[in-house]
């Protein structure tokens, strides 16, 4: 079936169980789909935009109220929606970091953190992980000292992923925040893999910025995200324009510089808002999703030769596993090579594992029902049994 021309209908989620690592928690709720149907037109949020003409001030539909709810949800003072987490990193870097400054990121930090720092003409320095692939508060403190010794000034910002994109290991954000603040350095919490799926309390963590990804973890379309901060940093990161046109004398006083004015002006924010009641509820059920994640990982580990590369037991629904000692031994002699594994999964109605990968690969079980979880776990064991790996 085609939508138009050669654009096919996407039926992945309807026909398969999708364990793709970055897609799981961005799947839309029914309400978000309905909001897209009704609000898909370009500037659909602007029907009743009144003075002061800014997205987060619009009351019909209740976008202003949503912004307040977002900051309460994260226990921060101010929040704005952004076109993805990356634009939030960029906004913070451009607001706080000067040319030549150093910004600390995790050795498992996302590439968009690098780009945001580079965009501000600053330099990234990485905080190494320990033997367990965890970033600790002590490691952050040591790196701050090292950079300060080398450069004669401390880093301008610390950015740390709570759960990283690669292994989804949990890193010590509270410890890092304590360390950063001992040196008067602000810290940004990258919650791309937490905000919207597990409870996040910015003040309890002691961070200055909380960043979330709508399309990764808040059941929202791409791009969408959130940047929340404290009252102490709100004026800096959400500063308004001071520019005056030299010919016309025009001023745009209320527009926020780092946001480039309004951010999500159509279906994306309404879909994010429509999913929000579900998102707010679902974070309370995080524990059960972690239990389900461990159920699937345990099934994989029951197959001889398999290892969990991520920390184990799992604290997240995203996991990296190594099947070099099992499925890859089949791939070495199978006519379809590594594709035999994704073929076998697809025949059973499961997609999302990287096609052709039989060594280290990632899966995400977020959002699956118990029936689907058992089905996936059984499928792995069934494939292993078929090839004599049990």
């Amino acid at each position, binding site marked *: 079936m085609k939508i138009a021309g050669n654009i096919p209908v996407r039926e992945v*989620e*309807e*026909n*398969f*169980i999708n364990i793709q690592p970055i897609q799981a928690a961005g*799947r839309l*709720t*029914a*309400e978000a*789909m*309905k*909001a897209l*149907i*009704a609000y898909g037109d370009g500037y659909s949020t602007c*029907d*009743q935009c009144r003075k002061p003409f800014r997205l987060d001030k619009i009351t*019909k*539909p*209740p976008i202003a109220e949503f912004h307040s709810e977002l900051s309460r949800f994260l226990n921060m003072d101010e929040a704005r929606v952004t076109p993805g987490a990356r634009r939030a990193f960029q906004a913070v870097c451009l607001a706080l970091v000067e040319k030549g400054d150093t910004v600390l990121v995790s050795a498992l930090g996302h590439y968009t953190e690098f780009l945001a720092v580079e965009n501000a003409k600053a330099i990234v320095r990485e905080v190494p992980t320990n033997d367990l692939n965890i970033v600790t508060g002590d490691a952050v403190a040591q790196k701050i000292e090292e950079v300060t010794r080398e450069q004669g000034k401390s880093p301008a910002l610390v950015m740390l992923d709570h759960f990283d994109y690669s292994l989804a290991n949990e890193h010590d954000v509270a410890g890092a925040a304590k360390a950063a603040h001992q040196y008067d350095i602000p810290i940004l919490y990258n919650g791309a893999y937490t905000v919207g799926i597990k409870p996040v309390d910015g003040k309890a963590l002691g961070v200055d910025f909380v960043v979330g990804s709508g399309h990764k973890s808040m059941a929202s379309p791409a791009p969408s995200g959130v940047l929340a901060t404290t009252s102490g940093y709100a004026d800096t990161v959400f500063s308004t324009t001071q520019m005056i046109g030299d010919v016309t004398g025009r001023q745009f006083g209320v527009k926020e510089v780092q946001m480039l004015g309004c951010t999500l002006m159509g279906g994306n924010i*309404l879909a994010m*808002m*429509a*999913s*929000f*009641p*579900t998102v707010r509820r679902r974070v309370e059920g995080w524990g059960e999703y972690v239990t389900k994640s461990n159920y699937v990982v345990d099934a994989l580990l029951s197959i001889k030769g398999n290892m969990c590369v991520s920390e184990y037991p799992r604290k997240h629904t995203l996991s990296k596993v190594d099947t070099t000692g099992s499925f890859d031994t089949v791939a070495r002699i199978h006519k379809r090579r590594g594709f035999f594994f994704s073929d076998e999964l697809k025949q*059973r*109605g*499961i997609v999302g594992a990287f096609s052709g990968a039989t060594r280290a690969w990632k899966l995400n079980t977020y959002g699956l*029902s118990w*029936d*689907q979880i058992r*089905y996936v776990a059984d499928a792995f064991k069934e494939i292993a049994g078929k090839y004599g790996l049990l």
Partner: protein
Amino acid sequence: MHSANKPFQARVAANGSFLSIKINNIKLLDYWGLGMDNAVDNLFEALFALTDLRVLLRETAPLHKLSAEQQMQAREALARAKVALSKLEEELQE
């Protein structure tokens, strides 16, 4: 359930047509404060009912074996869609 917490709310006129539709308390169709065209209301109602069905298909992939409760939800969604389409057909023929 408190009405404010219902994910889908509709105000229905005496003649059976929708006056307004809300999703998660976001008023979708009548925030201009004008009376809405019944055909448009029914169009959205049909699309939304089918969207509920779409989500049900996602929740039960890949086998689509529905539990008794899910079968009831599917029947309800299909009935809503059929009623809305039937009204839409009438509206557009008037």
